[in-house]
C-alpha cells in the first residue's frame, strides 16, 4: 500500500466554555489576580478546567490517496471541528496531522462573495480565496458559469441575485477547485433538489474520475453511501477507525439522536383534557430487529389500558416528515376490521412485511379510537429514524417519500 495522503495522529481539541465571544478586561484582571495570589501563598495555581470541553479526543486515522472517506456522527460529535482543523481554520490543542498534497475545503459554500461586485468579478475573487490562481480560474471560467446556470446575470452585482443563484454560483466555483485533497461539509444542504443532485454528481466525478482524495462530512446517509466506500464514525469526540460504509451507517443509526424505540407514554400530557380517561396508551415500542429499516420487516407494539369494555375500536399510527407532512398512515380498521377492548391491559401488535419509508427522521403520532371518537391520541411523541440497511440498494435512487415494490408482469405483444 502506498503512503497515506492524510495521517492523523492523536488529534485533540479543547474549547473553553462560557468564554465564547470576548473575554472582558475585568475577567482577565480577575484571573491574573487569582494567579498572583496563588503564587504568593506558595501553592501552584489551580488549573481552571471546569469549563473545558473536549470536542475531539485522541483522534487517529489514515486516508489513502484517491479514497473517498465519509465522516459521520451526530450533532456535536466533533465532525466540524475535525474538518476545521484539517482545513487549517483553527489549530488542534494536541496531536499532529500530515497532509501530503494541496488541500481545498468546501465548508459552507456561500462565503467570500462581495455583494457589490458582479458575478464575474466574484468568480475570480472566490476562486482566489479558495486558493486558485487567476489563470486557473480563467481556464475554468466557462465551465463554472455553465455549471452555475447564471450566464445571463454575470455582470449584475451578486447582491441582486436570488439566494438560489447566489448559492449555485458559489458552489460552482468551489466545485471546480482541483486540490489533491478535497474537504466537503454538508454542501448538499444547498439549492433545490435538482441542484443537489447535480452537486452530488459533481462530487462523484471529482472522487471517481479524477482520482482525488475526498473527505466528506454529511448527515445525508444516501449521499455518503453513494460517494464513499469507507467511513469514520465520530462519537463524542472519539473516532472509530475507517470501516466499511454499510457497517458505519448501521453503527451511526444505532446511536443517532433519535428517541428510544421503547417509550413509556402513560404520563405524557394529552392535548385534550378528556383524552386518556377511559382508555389510554401506556407503552409504544418498535419490536422489529434493528428498529426501523427501509424495506425490511417492521413491527410495533402498543400497550393499552382501558377502564371499560369498548367496542368497534381501532389503533392508528402516523409518520410525519420533520416538515410536518404526514407521509404514511397505518390504521388497524382498514376494511372495517375493528376489535373489542376489554377492561384491563391489552397488547396490540402491527406487522409490516416491508417498511416503505425512505431513510430519514420521522415524527410519530398514534391514536386510539372508535369511529370518529378518539379515546386517546399522541401527536409527535417520538422522533424515530428510518435507516438504510446493508441490503438497501434502492432508496438512494431518488428523494421521494416512500417506495413499495409493485407486482408486475411482462408479456410480449
Amino acid at each position, binding site marked *: 500500500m502506498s503512503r497515506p495522503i492524510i495521517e492523523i495522529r492523536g488529534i485533540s481539541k479543547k474549547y473553553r466554555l462560557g468564554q465564547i465571544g470576548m473575554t472582558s478586561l475585568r475577567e482577565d484582571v480577575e484571573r491574573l489576580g487569582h494567579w498572583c495570589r496563588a503564587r504568593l501563598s506558595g501553592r501552584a495555581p489551580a488549573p481552571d478546567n471546569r469549563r473545558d470541553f473536549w470536542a475531539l479526543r485522541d483522534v487517529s486515522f489514515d486516508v489513502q490517496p484517491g479514497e473517498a472517506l465519509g465522516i459521520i456522527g451526530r450533532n456535536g460529535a466533533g465532525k466540524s471541528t475535525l474538518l476545521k482543523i484539517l482545513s487549517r481554520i483553527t489549530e488542534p490543542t494536541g496531536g499532529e496531522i500530515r497532509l501530503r498534497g494541496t488541500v481545498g475545503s468546501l465548508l459552507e459554500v456561500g462565503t467570500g462573495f462581495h455583494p457589490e461586485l458582479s458575478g464575474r468579478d466574484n468568480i475570480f*475573487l472566490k476562486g482566489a480565496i479558495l486558493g486558485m490562481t487567476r489563470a486557473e480560474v480563467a481556464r475554468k471560467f466557462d465551465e463554472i458559469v455553465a455549471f452555475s446556470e447564471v450566464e445571463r446575470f454575470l455582470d449584475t452585482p451578486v447582491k441582486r441575485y436570488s439566494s438560489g443563484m447566489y448559492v449555485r454560483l458559489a458552489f460552482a466555483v468551489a466545485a471546480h477547485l482541483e486540490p489533491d485533497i478535497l474537504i466537503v461539509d454538508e454542501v448538499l444542504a444547498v439549492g433545490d433538489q435538482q441542484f443537489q443532485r447535480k452537486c452530488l454528481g459533481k462530487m462523484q466525478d471529482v472522487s471517481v474520475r479524477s482520482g482525488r482524495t475526498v473527505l466528506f462530512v454529511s448527515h445525508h446517509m444516501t449521499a455518503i453511501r453513494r460517494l464513499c466506500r469507507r467511513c469514520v464514525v465520530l462519537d463524542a469526540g472519539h473516532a472509530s477507525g475507517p470501516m466499511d460504509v454499510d457497517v458505519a451507517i448501521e453503527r451511526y443509526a444505532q446511536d443517532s439522536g433519535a428517541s428510544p424505540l421503547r417509550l413509556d407514554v402513560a404520563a405524557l400530557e394529552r392535548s385534550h383534557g378528556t383524552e386518556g380517561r377511559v382508555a389510554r396508551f401506556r407503552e409504544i415500542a418498535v419490536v422489529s430487529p434493528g428498529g426501523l429499516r427501509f424495506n425490511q420487516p417492521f413491527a410495533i407494539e402498543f400497550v393499552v389500558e382501558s377502564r371499560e369494555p369498548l367496542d368497534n375500536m381501532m389503533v392508528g399510527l402516523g409518520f410525519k416528515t420533520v416538515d410536518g407532512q404526514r407521509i404514511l398512515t397505518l390504521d388497524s380498521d382498514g376494511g372495517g376490521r375493528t376489535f373489542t377492548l376489554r377492561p384491563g391491559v391489552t397488547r396490540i401488535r402491527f406487522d409490516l412485511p416491508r417498511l416503505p419509508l425512505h431513510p430519514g427522521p420521522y415524527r410519530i403520532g398514534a391514536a386510539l379510537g372508535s369511529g370518529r371518537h378518539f379515546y386517546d391520541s399522541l401527536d409527535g411523541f417520538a422522533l424515530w429514524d428510518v435507516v438504510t440497511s446493508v441490503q438497501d440498494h434502492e432508496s438512494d435512487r431518488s428523494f421521494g417519500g416512500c417506495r413499495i415494490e409493485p407486482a408486475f408482469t411482462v408479456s410480449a405483444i
Partner: protein
Amino acid sequence: MNAPAPSSPPETEIVIKASSAWFTIDWRGLLAYRDLLRQLIQRDFTARYKQTILGPTWFFFNPVVTTLTFTLVFNKVIGVPTDGVPPMLFYLCGMLGWSYFAAVLGNTGNSLAGSAALFSKVYFPRLIPPLALTVSSMFALGIQFLTFFVFFARAHWFTATPTLPAPGLLWLAFPAIVLHMAVLALGVGLILSTLTAKYRDLNHIQGYLIQLWMYATPVIYPLSRVPEKWRWIAELNPVTPIVEASRRIFLGVGTVDPSRYAQSVAAAVVIFLVGVFAYQRAARTFVDTV
C-alpha cells in the same frame, strides 16, 4: 518479480499541529496566494466607489475639503502659524504624511474581528487582508499627492512664492517615507486588530484614538512651534518625524533630526514585528472565540 513503482514524491507536505514556534511568516503560503492579494486590492477600490456618482473623484475631494477646513479653522480663526508656507500647501503636505497612516490604521485595525465570517470558513494566510488594505490605500495617497502637486505648481510657477524650493532630487525620497509609513501603520493596525479581537470595545475607541493621534502629530501645526523643552515628547511619536520629513522634502521647512528619524524607523520595524507576531498568534485560534 518487479517491485512496485515508488509513488512519486509529494509536492507539498503540510504539517498541522499546535504551534510551538513563536515567530513564523508563511512565505510560501503568501506566495501561493499572491493572486488573492491582488484580487483583494482590486476589490477594495472597485467596491468602495461602486454606485457613487463621483466614483474615485472622492479621493480628490477628501484632502481638499479637509485642508480647506483646517485653513479656515486653525489658520484663519485660531491663527496657528504655518512655518511661513501658504497654509493650503502646509496642510496638504502635512496630510500627505498623515492621511495614509490614518487610513491604513483605520482599515487594518479591525482585520480579525471584521473578517470573522470569512476566516471561520476558509483558510488562507491571515496576513493577506491587512496587507491588501495597506497596498490599496496607496491609491488614495497617489491621488492626494496629485492634488498636492496641483496646488504646489500653482504656488511655485504662477504666484511665484519665493520661499518655495523647486522640485528636486529630494522628492525621490518620498517613496521611502511611504514605505516607512506603511510598515509603521500596518504594525500598529495588526496590534490593534489583535486587541480588538479580544476586547471588542476597542472597536469603538479606534476612531477617537486616530483622531487624538492626529492632534499629537504636527499635522495642523509645525513642530517648530512646540517649545524646545517639550519637543522630545512630540518626537517620541514615531509619526512626527514622518510628517516633518515630508514637509522638508516638498516645502523646505520642517524640523528633521536624523537621529530622531532613525529612531522612528527602528520603532516602525519593532512595532511591525510585534504586530505580525501578535496577529498571527491570535489568528491561529481566533475562530474558536467568535
